[in-house]
């Protein structure tokens, strides 16, 4: 397998990078969707859809992917305490974009103990909830190859992406107050290299290529697993978010929650849709109407004025009351 510089994206992560100089092949012109920018012009070209496939059945839990991720992205997850679990660090963070989650499962049918190790991280949804929720123009973009990326110079650190995400992925940094997550190594993909995690994976449990190729590969893997007795093996490429550009092969695809609570049917929450949809439209319309309505009434209507007569009556009232020696009884 080679990487052809004439291709619009790498077809694999394992080959060596191209030796010819290569301009970045992924830029602002390839953005199909950007947060808080509803009138974005359509890109002039359509890149081939890419995907990273994570075959959980082949994962040995070595964490080479985590190391490669931290190395490529130059992140330094803080050193934590050993609390007797294999996850390290304990959670995704602004300095750790991917995390091996270890689940121990006793299969009631076979009586076997199974270690279900899932590499957690951004799924690169076709319909990204983070992008929908984000209020900062251009802070979250989606490229035509399917990669969802955070543009940190535009991020304001509000954390709305956390509420928008159906997978609980983004983390806001306490240092620079910007949100971080897996980039699908967009900077590597732009120059013909696959993601660092896929490159480092010793069992090729993580592979990278076009979405089409990855689906074909995943189907073959599912077939293989089924022949080995995993009759519920399948692909996790959830339709509720339009499919994802990071997807899994699971031994037990009928029970994704076994894999450290991978959601059964992830989709952008109806609450988020309602907040970003009707609430915004109706709310702004109501505010606009109220502002214009009062302005027009103020300009064209008659003001409520106090007459000179009222002033005279007030004076009479005050003088009458104060002339009385004692306060009146309660009315």
């Amino acid at each position: 397998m080679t990487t052809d510089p004439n291709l619009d994206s790498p077809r694999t992560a394992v080959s060596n990078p191209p030796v010819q100089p290569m301009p970045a092949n992924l830029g602002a012109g390839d953005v199909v969707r950007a947060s808080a920018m509803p009138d974005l012009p359509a890109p002039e070209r359509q890149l081939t859809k890419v995907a990273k496939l994570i075959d959980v059945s082949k994962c040995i839990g070595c964490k080479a992917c985590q190391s490669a991720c931290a190395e490529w992205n130059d992140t330094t997850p803080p050193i934590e305490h050993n609390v007797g679990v294999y996850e390290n660090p304990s959670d995704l963070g602004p300095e750790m974009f991917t995390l091996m989650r270890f689940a121990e499962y006793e299969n009631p049918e076979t009586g076997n103990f199974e270690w279900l190790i899932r590499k957690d991280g951004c799924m690169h949804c076709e319909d990204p909830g983070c992008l929908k929720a984000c209020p900062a123009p251009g802070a979250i973009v989606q490229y035509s190859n399917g990669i969802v990326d955070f543009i940190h110079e535009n991020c304001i650190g509000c954390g709305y992406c956390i509420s928008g995400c159906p997978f609980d992925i983004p983390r806001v940094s306490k240092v620079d107050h910007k949100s971080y997550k897996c980039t699908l190594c967009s900077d590597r993909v732009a120059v013909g290299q696959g993601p660092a995690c896929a490159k480092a994976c010793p069992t090729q449990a993580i592979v990278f290529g076009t979405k089409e190729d990855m689906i074909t590969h995943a189907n073959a893997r599912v077939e293989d697993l089924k022949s080995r007795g995993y009759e519920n093996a399948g692909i996790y490429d959830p339709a509720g978010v339009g499919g994802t550009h990071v997807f899994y092969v699971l031994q037990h695809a009928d029970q994704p929650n076994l894999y450290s609570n991978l959601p059964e049917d992830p989709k952008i929450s109806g609450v988020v849709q309602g907040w970003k949809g009707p609430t915004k439209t109706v709310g702004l319309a109501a505010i606009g109407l109220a502002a214009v309505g009062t302005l027009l009434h103020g300009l064209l209507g008659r003001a409520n004025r106090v007459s000179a007569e009222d002033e005279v009556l007030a004076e009479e009232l005050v003088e009458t009351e104060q002339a009385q020696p004692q306060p009146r009884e309660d009315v």
Partner: protein
Amino acid sequence: MTRRTQFSESGDHIETIDPVVVSRYRGFTRANHWVTAISLILLLLSGLAFFSPSLYFLTGLFGGGQTARWLHPIIGVVLFFSFLLLFVQLWRLNLPRPEDATWVGNIGELIRGEEEKLPELGKYNAGQKLIFWGMAGLIVVLIGSGIMIWEQYFPDLVSIPVRRVALLIHSIAAVLIILLFILHVYAAIWTRGTIRAMTRGSVTGGWAYKHHRKWLRELAERKPTDPAE
């Protein structure tokens, strides 16, 4: 010194008789009101920027998105405590009274400027009471939901599903409080002679007679102030 104050605060008083000028808000209350008002306006500008992409440019007033995001909840806390102070001073005379129903029933006459059918009122009419209780209720909702979505200091206070609901509630409550704010400002402008109650602190006798006669009457019933005082 105990005074019968069913329709007025003990500090309200008639300043002069010819012409009648009535003191409505002391300096402290006015300053308190303006701190609250400025906070609300700043919150409205920064909040609207996060509410709609078309208004995101408003973050420029605060020095950019990051600063606006940082400042918004802090001003929210200032507003909460400022309003709390205002609430303590104003709640008693804003309690509903029977004449409020009559006033609401004849709201049409008020807008047409035929106020003969309207009942005599104490310091506040039902509209002002609606603003007061509406603001109070919405501010409680906004500070509660606001803390739940305050990423910088309370990132793990509530679960993500709860946070989504808090975001929705916060934005709906914000729209409602902006509507109340517009109503409040416009009512104060439309009813001429009102603004000076919050600037100079006093209103004319005619204004008090026309809009809050029971309040004026109660103040007039008090022993006149010794001119030497």
